[in-house]
């Protein structure tokens, strides 16, 4: 049994993603300004120049299931941030609440150091698991922020309500807090507790705004294409039902 409509949308998604990645330069577009990512760029430069530490949290969610998507989005920007901060006196620190995510974060960090020819500066504890449960993870955040003298606190991964505490601990330390997750309820809490909350799919736009690669910019464009297709399908369904053609 084939889910025809879902498969058709997937094909449109895949085609537009690959198409924009290879031919997107022919039709340049401008992305709307997202204050969080714009300010993050400035904060990263300032932190490197002043020798301050940057902390990136990949959340507490597991790598299996829907919760893995924001974690992968966070891993995508991890390499970019790591490569721009590895020569700092206090290199980037990554924390997670999941063992598998910790392993991937270590791999990503190591790759970034190796590609920059700075393998000797890499230490496996730059990526660390603070705790195996959401609240044990959050309990470790205040000590990490104060002991490691963190100045930039980035939360980009899967969080539940504990994400609000993680963001608020950063605000209490007076550091820059950029936070986003996939969970709608947690997004509402982050809206109140973070300096720069990322709402909706903004968490997945980090790669495009931080210039990670052409596929990240193509992702935003393909999302808009598929969004328009889905809106058209929804409106068509509304019209059919209003006209009484479908029950």
């Amino acid at each position: 049994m084939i889910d025809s409509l879902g498969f058709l949308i997937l094909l449109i998604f895949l085609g537009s993603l690959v198409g924009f990645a290879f031919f997107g330069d022919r039709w340049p577009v401008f992305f709307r300004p997202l204050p969080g990512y714009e300010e993050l760029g400035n904060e990263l430069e300032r932190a490197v120049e002043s020798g301050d530490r940057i902390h990136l949290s990949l959340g507490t969610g597991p790598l299996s299931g829907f919760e893995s998507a924001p974690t992968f989005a966070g891993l995508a920007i991890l390499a970019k941030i790591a490569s721009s901060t590895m020569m700092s006196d206090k290199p980037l620190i990554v924390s997670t609440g999941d063992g598998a995510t910790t392993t991937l974060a270590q791999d990503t960090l190591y790759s970034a150091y190796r590609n920059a020819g700075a393998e000797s500066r890499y230490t496996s504890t730059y990526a660390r698991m603070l705790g195996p449960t959401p609240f044990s993870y959050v309990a470790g955040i205040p000590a990490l922020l104060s002991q490691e003298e963190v100045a930039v606190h980035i939360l980009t991964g899967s969080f539940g309500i504990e994400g609000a505490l993680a963001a608020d601990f950063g605000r209490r330390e007076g550091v820059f807090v950029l936070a986003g997750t996939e969970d709608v309820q947690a997004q509402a809490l982050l809206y109140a507790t973070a300096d720069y909350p990322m709402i909706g799919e903004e968490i997945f736009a980090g790669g495009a705004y931080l210039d990670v690669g052409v596929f990240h910019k193509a992702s935003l464009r393909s999302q808009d294409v598929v969004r328009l297709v889905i809106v058209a399908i929804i409106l068509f369904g509304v019209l059919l039902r209003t006209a009484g053609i479908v029950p």
Partner: protein
Amino acid sequence: MRFRGNVFGASVAFIVGVIVLLGYFFTSPLLGGVDIRQLLIQWAAIIAAAALFLGLINLFTVHWNKVNDQTQGWPYSAVLIFFFLVTIVLGVIFGPDFEVMNLLFNYIQLPIEAGLIALLAITLAYAGFRFISHRKDVFSVVFVSTALLVLMGNSPWLLGSDSTLAALMANLRAWIVQVWSVAGARGIILGVALGATTTGLRVILGADRPYGD
């Protein structure tokens, strides 16, 4: 785009990703009577469980280094290492149902995590006040007003719980939650789903390689 480096890892990610993804749309192929998609998902769960052990070793190493280097806050790390070892030894020897294990969970871990959840309520109330004082715009007023209206419509009142005003607030809460909130949440969820799909496709295509280059 880089297509060098860990070709083997990228190939495995591509093949496994395609099989699992297509399993949502087509009947999954069988290999010797076994559903390949389900088999791969089970393997992923087993690997994730093994990775938890690696994470715990990482946790131990971080705190061991802190104690060893006598860095700021090292006594807390020493306490963590002590209870880490005690819990593991008891768990391995007597099993997770051992009475002392239950005591450790019920009287140490559970109260601490419950305390953090309680702290969250205070934190959010404080964040609400700070939010409206720092961000003086229409969105902050709407955000905090909506939160207050929903709270008033959802909570028992000290006086006049049976009044017309209380009933009005309950209806207002229901209208906000069932109409505006659901509509907004569906829009956000649609955006998140689109973002999650492109993220997954990038990993399958090898454009993102979280397993290292």
